[in-house]
């Protein structure tokens, strides 16, 4: 069964239309990559899915329910979580509080504590840093904390925007490993937006290519990776 079904989605900023009739589906437990040029509308898409932006037209089904009119809180409660572009931690709060606020809305407290344990399992450095003020962490540590915070919502669908932005290659590698592990262990669906197309497609099972607000290609990640057009436009290989 599909966890997210997007049909004919259109989004506008005032008079400028950014997304044009976009279709996208994610199955439960699937790892999907969304790649595309700058300004293609990837962030806009994620924000619309989660509800930070309104859709101008089209439908958005999440876990079998039409959510496009619903506020952000509703969708989060229903099982979405997002790692926003640029991490956006609550810089003045401790790492621990940042993690816990990810589970802010959850009533199943014992389960929350278990999830906290899991997050520390994936990112042992966070346990060490849990008392530190989040704004003081290095970029990589902050990104880990941001992913951890999203995991604390125990979402059915994890949306990750620009996982590798400004991170050292070693850190990117770490994060990629953890995302893959989470996908498998928790059976959590992941939608990853990433500029590093190679990493993104290696991690995922399917991929979508977005260009000027439209899906121009989609399909099996491995195939996309081998597709000559992708190799040329996004990987610089021939």
């Amino acid at each position, binding site marked *: 069964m599909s966890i997210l079904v997007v049909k004919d989605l259109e989004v506008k*900023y005032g008079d400028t239309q950014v997304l044009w009739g976009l279709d996208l589906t994610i199955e439960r437990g699937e790892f999907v990559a969304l*790649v*595309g*040029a*700058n*300004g293609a509308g990837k*962030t806009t898409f994620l924000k619309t899915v989660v509800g930070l932006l309104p859709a101008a037209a089209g439908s958005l089904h999440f876990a079998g329910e039409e959510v496009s009119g619903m506020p952000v809180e509703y969708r989060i409660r229903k099982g979405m979580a997002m790692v926003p*572009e*640029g991490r956006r931690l609550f810089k003045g709060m401790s790492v621990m509080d940042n993690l816990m606020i990810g589970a802010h809305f959850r009533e199943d407290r014992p389960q929350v504590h278990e999830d906290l344990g899991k997050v520390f399992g994936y990112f042992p450095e966070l346990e060490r840093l849990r008392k530190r003020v989040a704004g003081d962490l*290095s*970029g*990589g*540590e902050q990104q880990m904390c941001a992913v951890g915070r999203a995991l604390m919502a125990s979402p059915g669908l994890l949306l990750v925007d*620009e996982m590798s*932005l*400004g*991170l*050292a*290659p*070693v*850190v*990117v*590698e770490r994060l990629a490993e953890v995302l893959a592990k989470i996908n498998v262990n928790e059976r959590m669906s992941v939608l990853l937006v990433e*500029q590093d*197309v*190679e990493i993104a497609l290696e991690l995922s099972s399917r991929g979508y290519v977005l260009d000027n607000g439209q899906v121009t290609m989609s399909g099996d990640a491995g195939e996309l990776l081998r597709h000559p057009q992708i190799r040329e*436009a*996004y*990987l*610089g*290989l*021939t």
Partner: protein
Amino acid sequence: MTLLEGKAISVSFGGVQALSAVDLSVHEGDVLDLIGPNGAGKTTLLNAISGLCPARSETLKFNGTEISRLKPHRRAKLGIARTFQVVKPFDRLTVVENVAVGAMFSGHKIPTRSRVIERARVALEQVGIASKADLFPRQLTLSERQQLELARALAMEPALLLLDEVMAGLNHAEIEKTMALIQHINKNLGITIVVVEHVMKAIMNVCNRIVVLHFGKKIAEGTPARIVESPEVIQAYLGKRFADRQRRDQAQRAAQP
């Protein structure tokens, strides 16, 4: 000739020693890359050069002038321009006005308004966001804002350009474009460049020297080819997977005629 000569540059924030006695010399015509893990002090080093944070140093000379006591705007007028990793556009000026400010107050006096605008437009062309000239910065995407940063710096027609992660968030094609732009700035406009970049495969091709920072110390310096082989750098920064990819790419390139 050495354009920028810094000896023992140190910066500390309260208890945190962000930079400890880093030496840096940039030669005219260089494209120098500064790499290092997050928090290594790369941005801080750029800040120290442009005068935005209090730094101690034995010497900090630009074009033969000691600049360590100069305020940031004096250094800018001498010909040091920079971009910010966390972009700092002038939100309530339009894109073209943003760039015009760069042309207006740099050391080069431009006589008329229309020339200032002309200059700004050229800079916007160069970075490829000329079509957005009349928008406000917050109507741009993150990467377009980074391009705006670059355009503002270019409009100043500096001698030394400091670029802080201008490629972050760009895809391959755009990275290629930016690389070409950097090369163009360097070769055709004769501007010396210091870049901070994580995008290694791009940097390998444009820069002639790499300085590696780690915990505020310089741990390596040399040509790109040498640096990527250094086990210390691989361990601290690049990661094994990257090294593998790097080797594979090189092999592939070598295979191509």
